[in-house]
């Protein structure tokens, strides 16, 4: 086994970390956060120039041919600075549908645009009563000649406010919770019948509530089988979970480093607070959670390309559950150890805590994934494993 990065991967990581160190100081991030768009088009162009957008796509499609490990590297680094750009929404989520479900023509049309930073995507899936269930889709797609007509409402669509195209799930058949009958469509975000209300999320990212009112889309915008798109959705979301876990490791490692540094300089009773055993043990608990999260992220990354969907899902349930509980422990302790300053908008640690908290509620929180894993028979059901 080899847990180390290859030379090329190390070069990628170093280059990205250098760029982010230069562009993503806390003050600069605050400025971006308060801008109208809520993210930086200039930094977005830097990502594209570095090849980050092209990274996970196949070379024949105009990509660089990176895999889950490369995405892990990027997401962890973006997490460490709380980057605000729609990278995850566009490249990991939206791009995931192209990679795993796109036809040759679709990939030829869209991948080069993503690679050069000209196309932003968002995954419009969650609905009012769905909570974390991927199969719960009430939005309808009615076949009409060579087109589909989409109607419904989608919630908390990450970066749905700025996306050029939306990956929309809608039912071509079946009841709201059936496995079959879900289609996946690539929809022009400015098409007739699409209305969007954008807003900021708790962690400073952007999202949108989206209404689809008889939106007509050509049949060739469907990813894969319009009658059976849910396996594709599950695969893309599993890979997205692995990437989110990596982002969470970046967030957790930054919180931990900030906290330990603060413990060394903050003095009370004439000594650094890091000399107090009660706080030392909290900091160690954070360290343990961080290393366990890192390990679980590596496991999730390894399993992201697993073709056995049930095996892959169990790994992601386990990883997301671990990240959720470890992240909460880390975030809450980071704020606690900082004391009053940890409560302020002016200081970085609270921003990390908020992002960590929102990562938990994206694509299923810790409880959800624990329940799913338990229902699936657990992780070590095969005693030979």
């Amino acid at each position: 086994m080899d847990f180390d990065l290859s030379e090329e991967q190390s070069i990628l990581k170093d280059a990205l970390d250098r760029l982010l160190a230069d562009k993503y100081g806390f003050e600069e991030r605050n400025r971006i956060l308060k801008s109208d768009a809520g993210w930086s088009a200039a930094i977005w162009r830097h990502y594209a120039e570095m090849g980050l957008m092209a990274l996970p796509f196949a070379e024949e499609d105009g990509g660089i041919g990176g895999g889950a490990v490369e995405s892990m590297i990027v997401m962890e680094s973006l997490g460490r600075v709380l980057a605000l750009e729609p990278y995850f929404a566009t490249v990991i989520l939206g791009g995931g549908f192209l990679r795993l479900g796109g036809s040759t023509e679709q990939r030829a049309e869209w991948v080069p645009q993503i690679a050069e930073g000209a196309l932003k995507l968002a995954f419009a899936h969650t609905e009012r009563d769905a909570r974390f269930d991927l199969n719960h889709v009430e939005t309808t797609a009615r076949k009409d000649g060579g087109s589909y007509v989409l109607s419904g409402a989608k919630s908390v669509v990450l970066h749905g406010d700025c996306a050029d195209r939306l990956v929309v799930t809608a039912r071509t058949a079946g009841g709201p919770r059936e496995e079959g009958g879900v289609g996946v469509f690539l929809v022009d975000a400015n098409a007739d019948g699409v209305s969007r209300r954008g807003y900021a999320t708790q962690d400073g990212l952007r999202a949108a509530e989206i209404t689809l009112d008889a939106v007509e889309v050509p049949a060739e915008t469907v990813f894969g089988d319009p009658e059976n798109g849910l396996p594709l959705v599950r695969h893309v979301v599993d890979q997205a979970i692995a990437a989110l876990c990596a982002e969470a490791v970046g967030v957790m490692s930054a919180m931990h480093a900030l906290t330990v540094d603060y413990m060394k300089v903050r003095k009370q009773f004439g000594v650094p607070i890091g000399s107090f055993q009660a706080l030392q043990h909290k900091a160690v608990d954070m360290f343990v959670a961080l290393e366990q999260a890192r390990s679980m992220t590596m496991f999730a990354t390894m399993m992201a390309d697993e073709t056995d969907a049930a095996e892959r899902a169990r790994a992601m349930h386990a990883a997301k559950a671990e990240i959720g509980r470890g992240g909460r422990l880390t975030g809450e302790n980071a704020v606690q150890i900082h004391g009053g300053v940890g409560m302020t908008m002016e200081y970085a640690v609270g921003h990390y805590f908020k992002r960590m908290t929102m990562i938990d509620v994206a694509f299923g929180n810790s409880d959800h994934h624990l329940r799913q894993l338990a229902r699936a028979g657990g992780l070590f059901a095969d005693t030979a494993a």
Partner: protein
Amino acid sequence: MDLRYTDEEIAFREEVRAFFRDKLPADIREKMVDAEHVGKDDFVRWTRVLNEKGWAVPHWPVEHGGTGWGPMKQYIYLEELQKFPAPQPLAFGVNMVGPVIYTFGNDDQKDRFLPRIANLDDWWCQGFSEPGSGSDLASLKTRAVREADHYIVNGQKTWTTLAQYADWIFCLVRTDPAAKKQQGISFLLIDMTSPGIEVRPIVTIDGGREINEVFLTDVRVPVENLVGEENKGWDYAKFLLGNERTNIARIGVSKQRVARIRELAAKEMSSGRPLIEDERFREKLASIEIDLKALEMTQLRVIAADAKRGDTGRPDPASSILKIKGSEIQQATTHLLMEVMGPYAAPYLPEGDDRWNEPSNVPDYARFAAPSYFNNRKVSIYGGSNEIQKNIIAKAVLGL
């Protein structure tokens, strides 16, 4: 990054499994399944089977009987041993005093002791802790005074595991009371048949007779039984406590227990159906499995780093969490296994008694569930309590 086992490692795992299937006596395996309660004879019998195969001390240098396996193969072997489950060769010999002797001992000591450790001809116990020296081990008071070609040893050791079987004890003794506390300590090998040694059992809360007090009164120890240099014993003790990175988490033990929980929860009924179908129970088990999987990956990270760097350098910082998480998970699994038994966790059958009054509804597998839970409280106490581990991480890893 490539987290797959190689074909060679997979084949090796199969080879190890096949060997255990063929060679581990069924009665020993049966005793191991619900409790690690095997007697001295069982240990000796099994160790000799392993030693004949050349697998009793795989991690030792080849010239002393080791296999030359790298860290990953050693880990696979241990995990399979624990999962099977088969008894692990006695740690006090093969993991503790053996490595100290081949690293710091002289040639006479190596020739005399190492082959007998590998074959379990000598049963070793550990004389470190004292009544007044627990976590603060360096405060130990047992005194050794040089008189011509002997040390005269006086003092008391405690928590001495399986001393009742022991032929030898390795002891930390104070040879220079004037020196700073870590610097006046020496590492002595003492024959348990020496006059002046008395072993008294301490019964633990599970009813077990695993640990003892060892009293040393004017015990004469030949100077050739000093390991390394006088007053350098603390260095050897730190080496002994620090050189175990492949097994401290005991992943295989917890995997075996998780499998056993699943198996027995399918037999025990709750609300009219097998307990394993109870959603809350399944979530508790899944929760432990998640922790265990994360720890397994952490363990593999540490091993891969060891393999790459050679086993001698500074360990990966992640290795420091193995003891803490490993012990927490062992404790969680023993607790959940006890929960599986429901009311049948309660009946107590003392050791030596071999069955319940007939007829009985008490399932045999329930017998050790509560004792095993009680007994496993020790794993966050011994080898440096988890709180001490946290102090060490705070200082050594976080720089606090």
